[in-house]
């Protein structure tokens, strides 16, 4: 059995790196008292993975940790144990139990929802550039990849994009083949408007996968 734990990362902890969070979660699982499954070998560690890494400096209401259990456990017990093992700035929002044979959360996730708050010079310009961006068939931008920088069409990565409150909401692709990062999108919008990129606060609001009908749905509701 595996548990998918949905948790948040509040602003205070936004500078914790993904690597540090990984180590922290391994220790947190040790102190849950739950029957966690461990890897074999010289340095056994809990079998766990994140659905998606969150960039340094971003906050989230929707991080998902996928943990393998060595014995069946009730959902409520898992949720309580996780809640007591994490500090208040990593709040636990829910636990879903899945079968060992179900694909890993990181294989299921294919899109992510963000709210990007804009402030300072350039904020207006970014919002004004949204209709033009949506109307364009292709938008080329320099994208950092493992093998250096190259120009790619980022338009298909933006599944939806609407102004909202102090910034915009975006649903962005998050698969191996196609993905778009929220900060790159904001930079491209600013560039298209001929403005400097404003200050960004990126906040993740959901991680999504596809249900049997092929519809995008939050991971915890699949």
């Amino acid at each position, binding site marked *: 059995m595996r548990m998918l734990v949905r948790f948040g990362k*509040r*602003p*205070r*902890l936004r*500078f*914790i*790196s993904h690597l*540090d*969070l990984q180590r*922290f979660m*391994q*220790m*947190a*699982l*040790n*102190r849950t*008292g739950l029957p966690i499954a*461990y890897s074999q070998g*010289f340095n*056994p560690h809990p079998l766990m993975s994140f659905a998606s890494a969150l960039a340094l*400096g971003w906050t989230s209401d929707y991080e998902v940790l996928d943990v393998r259990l060595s014995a069946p456990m009730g959902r409520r017990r898992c949720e309580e144990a996780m809640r007591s*093992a*994490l*500090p*208040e*700035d990593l709040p636990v929002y829910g636990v879903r139990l899945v079968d060992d044979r179900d694909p890993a959360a990181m294989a299921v996730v294919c899109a992510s929802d963000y709210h990007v708050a804009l402030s300072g010079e350039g904020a207006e310009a970014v919002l004004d550039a949204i209709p033009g961006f949506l109307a364009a068939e292709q938008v080329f931008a320099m994208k950092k990849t493992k093998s250096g920088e190259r120009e790619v069409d980022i338009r298909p990565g933006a599944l939806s994009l609407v102004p909202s409150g102090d910034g915009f909401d975006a649903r962005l692709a998050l698969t191996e083949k196609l993905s778009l990062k929220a900060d790159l999108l904001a930079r491209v919008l600013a560039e298209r408007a001929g403005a400097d990129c404003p200050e960004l606060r990126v906040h993740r609001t959901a991680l999504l996968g596809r249900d049997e009908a092929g519809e995008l749905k939050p991971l915890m509701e699949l």
Partner: protein
Amino acid sequence: MNLSDRIEALLAQVQKPVRYMGGEFGAAMKDAGDVDVRYAFLFPDTYEVGMSHLGMRILYDALNRREDVWCERAFTPWVDMADAMRAEGVPLFTLESRTPVREFDLLGITLQYEMSYTNVLESLDLAGIPLRREERGSDDPFVICGGPCAFNPEPLAPFVDLFALGDGEEETLATVDAYKAWKRSGAPREEYLRMCAKIPGIYVPSFYDVTYNSDGTIAAVTPKPGTDAPEVVRKAMVRDLNAAVYPESLIVPYGEIVHNRIMLEIFRGCTRGCRFCQAGMIYRPVRERSRQRLMALAEKLVASTGYDEISLMSLSSGDYSCLPELAHDMVERFARKRVKISLPSQRIDAVLTDTLKETQKVRKTALTLAPEAGTQRLRDVINKGVTEEDLVRSVTDAFEQGWSAVKFYFMIGLPTETDEDVLGIAELARLVRRCYFSVPKERRAPGLRITVSASVFVPKPFTPFQWCGQLESGEVIRRQKLLRDELRTVKGVDFKYHAPDVSYIEAVFARGDRRLADVLERAWRLGCRFDGWSDQFRYDLWLQAFADCGVDPAFYGLREFGLDEVLPWDHLDAGVTKEFLRREWDKAQRGERTQDCRKGCVGCGMKRYEGACV
């Protein structure tokens, strides 16, 4: 913008924001309205260093167990953050509630090392607390300093309200109780000091007058009339470590810190009596925690923190009276929980390694040994009870167990040291090489690496070497070169040493008096901070500070103090008597050893403390 938002804005600009973040699992969060006393605990170095310090963890726990107290942490911000805070007018704040340190009732600072003194001033200044205690008003916290350097507190005397000598568990709580009583009484600020002067271990520097002789030495340190302060302040001592408070849960940091594991103090004090070692003198007597207590603590700490490693800590863990049994119990209890047991690897004992090896959890990092001196003669002088045979056995055992990296710590400039002693270090390195090659090739791990690290000897108060001057730096450099050239002829040795500048300033402050306070403040104003970090240390600024203040550093650092001289710390009592130290100094000069006091009392003076030695 409120302070928290202003801090957040700075975090995006600095190197390691995690240092200032707070919000860790296990941090004590309370409601400021629910407590009577707010206590800020400052470690005058970075977060990574401070969070690795056991003493701070113990006192944080002891204070926060009380419902009427909230203890929060602060660290000296690294230079990038400090500069940004000054530019934006953000004061030094605590990590838990992000409250300005200046708003606290009590500010405890631990003094682990003389080279953190400028960071004490830097932190007070960032907090907006006047540096000099007489400039502080009713809104400022009382500044209380503890830790090993509190045993020669004089260079910091004008900046500090109280010094706490000795074990902090009980005396820290007593200063809090006194604070509550003082606050209720509505009495003037000085009355709190008067109340604290009655607490065992508390030294109130403003209650003492220092007079000087014409040659610059001290004539007398005497309590001011009407203060009721004792002539000699005795250190505080926790008699029963089993009954003493010890954390049952810990703050678990997010990033890497220096020691990121459960630290379990198995005993306090050391009986070996190495004559250079201040810790071995001031933490007497030896007090052990029982196996039962340690097992119970370990159980709780593993469950509450999730750490997968327990380090058995003390000044000399190999001396714990039933170490093999303890290690065995620990391994047996925790192996199935995948928790490693580690020992600071000072001594490799066959029984012990076998126990730890059972689980294959013993770390095969470099074996570390500290012979301190290169010849038996000099090791006898410093009373380091390690013989060449011990060393040969330890390293040969280690090589047979699969170690191939060994590290040795030595000191250069010990009293009576000759060139022969210095060259003896290279001889030992050769001997270690021979030990390695004496193990059959199929049984030893490949790739022998020997690291020889030589620091510069710094004479410390309350040691038999407290009267010695430090070796002058030109001569230190000559001996370092002599050793370096000799070690070049030994294959596979990595020699580590440092310029003697930092050690010199350390020596000056270790044996300094009140007249150094002006130099310290001047050095800090010139820009000195984080002096213990080689990339920050500015020897030129320190020399300028001495010159500006008209103080000769050699008077403190290089001069041999007279045996009849009043020492700057003679009005403090660290447990060992001056007579004992004097006896040890005489024996050292004759090259005579003194036995480990577990084998029989050596009359160090601890028996004057009720219940100290059984």
